């Protein structure tokens, strides 16, 4: 049995840098869309993104959906986390050879950040959104909850952290899904997207 940590935080940034990293976190102008069509409609209307960027962001979010959507070993557990009717099997959602015994939430929207084109270092410019258990929306990592899948807001850059891959790993058991917990706590603090 290993007696030491798997990772540690090695770098001492210093007070000035750490405070900036903590409180003055880079803010990202972000916009959410329920689907590609609404993004393109907003683009032609002079929105945050162009039609070409809509395509790029959607492709990226869909790739992340395949790679990093929460995965569950039963439909019931998935629906417990994401609401009835909001889940489907991996086989239905992944084009090349998903399993019929693994369940993922259906893609319910896209979050696009203004860092499009310059995201890197573990960041992704767009993120898939899913229904959560309380009728709102959440990201792939389940770390942030949003009131809506449409609208515009400023948010911390950490919302664009690339989620950990779940594809090809053992399906999550109901115990791990339960330990995710805390849905709703973050949403209130963040204010969410207003219409």
């Amino acid at each position, binding site marked *: 049995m*290993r*007696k*030491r940590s798997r990772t540690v935080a*090695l770098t001492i940034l*210093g007070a000035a840098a750490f405070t900036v990293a*903590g409180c003055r976190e880079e803010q990202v102008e972000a916009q959410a869309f329920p689907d590609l069509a609404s993004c393109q409609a907003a683009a032609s209307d002079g929105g945050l993104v162009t039609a070409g960027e809509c395509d790029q962001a959607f492709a990226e979010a869909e790739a992340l959906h395949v790679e990093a959507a929460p995965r569950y070993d039963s439909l019931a557990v998935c629906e417990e986390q994401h609401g009835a009717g909001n889940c489907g099997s991996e086989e239905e959602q992944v084009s090349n050879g998903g399993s019929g015994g693994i369940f993922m939430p259906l893609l319910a929207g896209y979050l696009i950040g203004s860092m499009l084109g310059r995201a890197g270092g573990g960041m992704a410019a767009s993120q898939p959104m899913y229904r959560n258990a309380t009728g709102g929306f959440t990201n792939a990592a389940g770390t942030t909850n949003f009131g809506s899948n449409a609208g515009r807001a400023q948010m911390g850059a950490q919302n664009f952290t690339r989620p950990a891959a779940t594809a090809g790993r053992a399906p999550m058991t109901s115990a791990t899904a339960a330990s995710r917990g805390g849905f709703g706590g*973050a949403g209130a603090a963040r204010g969410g997207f207003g219409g």
Partner: protein
Amino acid sequence: MRKITLPERPDLAAKAAEVGFTFAHMHGEPYWDESSAYQFTLAQIEDDLEGPATELHAMTREAVNRIVADPALMDRLGIPQAHQALVADSWARGEPEIYGRMDLAYDGTGPAKLLEYNADTPTSLYESAAFQWQWLEDQMAAGHLPKGADQFNGIHEALVERYRELFPPDTDIHFTAVADNAEDYATVEAMAWAAREAGMGAHYSDLDKLAVSKDGQFLDADDRVIGTLFKLYPWEDLLTDDFARHIAKSGCLFLEPAWKAVVSNKGLLPILWQMFPGHPNLLPAFFADDVADALVAGGQPLPAVAQAFAPVAEQFRAAHVVKPIFSREGAGVVIVEGGEVTDASENHDYDGHARIVQAYHALPEFDGFRPVIGAWIVGSACAGIGIREDRARITQDLSRFKPHFIAE
């Protein structure tokens, strides 16, 4: 347990500079010293250090339960009467502890002995949890340590887990320390990294930049309300500051909580000995006032402790250590052998405080240095160790940090 010589990493200086470990040298001496290291067996770690330290923490909690219910004991521990309710309330509310460091005397055999418990503001967290960890990885990669070597150092992971279990995601936690002290700051930032990894918002302000709002809430350097404050600043100092009167009504959760004022306090040691006499990991200890007369030839202890003192009287007369109830880095510590002072700290900052006496237990000696094992408690369990050694019998701030590893 043995001490072995090892080559230093050739790029040690660059490595320390790169990660911002600016105090690897202090006072013109190496502080981080990897020219040798301590080796333990897994049984020594688990049976002699980890298990006993976890048990000592549980005993400490029992002692706190007794102390906060007894104003006379709080008086003896130097808790100002105006703030005794604050201390007792923080315990009654179950305010959580994050971390602490027990200093243990251990030579590889026999029970480790608790010298004291810095349960409020222990430093050397960064070098224990992070730099020591990197040292092991580097030395294994370089082939200087066997591939299967390990280290008792789950400190960072345990801290992350502790924050996760205590706070909902995205809880904002403020961190504070005295400005411009690299050593204190490193401990605070190591703590803040763990909180951030656990999904918390971590914000730093220098201690002197904190403010109080009209509503009596504490504010950070940017005037944001503080809900939870990790402070690397001892309660005994905090309670004498002007702002102390605002604490109870600030609505701010302090980490470590106020009840740690009676743990990180050498007055805990005689109370532990009274509650658990003869425990193998405790050294006999008494409040100095209770036994002062008995420590000179022909004198008697106070009647209340006479029965407890009798079995250890000879041990105390042979050698004992006098410690102020509040002191850091050996300050104010005096060693008395056969009635003569044979060693004394030159730091007298804490001489105004009440004292305790503890039976003298010699630290082991390895190549002219005497190591003290710092056993890190995270939450309620021991999660790792860091070792400091000193040439002197009283470990002080010139001591060196020594890495360790586990191999059979």
